[in-house]
């Protein structure tokens, strides 16, 4: 199976994630799009590890680390979103622009 197909799938997922981060208004949806980007990177790592199948395990090990870091980042990100909601009663990122120029 050609590697290029999988890599194009993951770059598509990455760009859809970027669209989500830039275009969505709800902060939780932005966090979801970030997870989309991280998954695209994970797919890349795992398929590259397939090319180095028994020689090295770095791809899968790094994919595990990415999953861990993504979960940690999401926890802190959601804590921040909930704090913003408590203070401003909104999670729309357009409306939390108090410090914008």
């Amino acid at each position: 199976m050609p590697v290029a197909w999988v890599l194009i799938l993951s770059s598509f997922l990455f760009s859809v994630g970027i669209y989500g981060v830039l275009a969505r208004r709800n902060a939780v949806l932005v966090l979801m799009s970030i997870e989309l980007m991280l998954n695209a990177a994970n797919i890349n790592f795992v398929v590259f590890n397939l090319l180095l199948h028994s020689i090295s395990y770095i791809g899968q090990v790094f994919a595990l680390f990415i999953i861990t870091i993504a979960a940690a980042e999401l926890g802190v990100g959601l804590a921040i979103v909930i704090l913003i909601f408590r203070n401003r009663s909104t999670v729309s990122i357009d409306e939390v622009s108090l410090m914008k120029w």
Partner: protein
Amino acid sequence: MQQVVFGIVAALIVFAAVRLVTTRNLVHGALYLLAVLAGAAILFLLFLAEFVAWVQVLVYIGAVVVLLLFGLMLTRAPIGNMALDSQTRPLAAVVSLAIFGITSTIVWKTFKGQTVHFSKPNTVDTLGRAIFSQYVLPFEIVSVVLLAALVGAVVLARKEE
């Protein structure tokens, strides 16, 4: 055979990802994310990374999606649709198309001929030995990062007394 499975799963992932960034119903968005994560787990199984696939199910599907749903419900996700997205939609579409174009062209030119060969999956045994011998330093650092995130989230979300 693997190509057929990959094709079906890729179609599912593409559909769910596009619906995730275009839907106006928040909880539907979380469930489309669930579909993308499940598709990624199937891909990991296909690419002989069994342990990573089940970690993806346990952590991402079992905890991250639950956390996102909690976040949505604690910030008043309405049961119907919400208003339209931000004004930057056309610009965002241009940027994401440009990035997709650039990365896929580079990838196509670099990896055009290479194919992968499927053999036996990695056992957890060898993966575990690799983590604890060769990559033990990143492992410890990731543990510290997790601890920091845990303490940070608890401190941030605590109500003032």
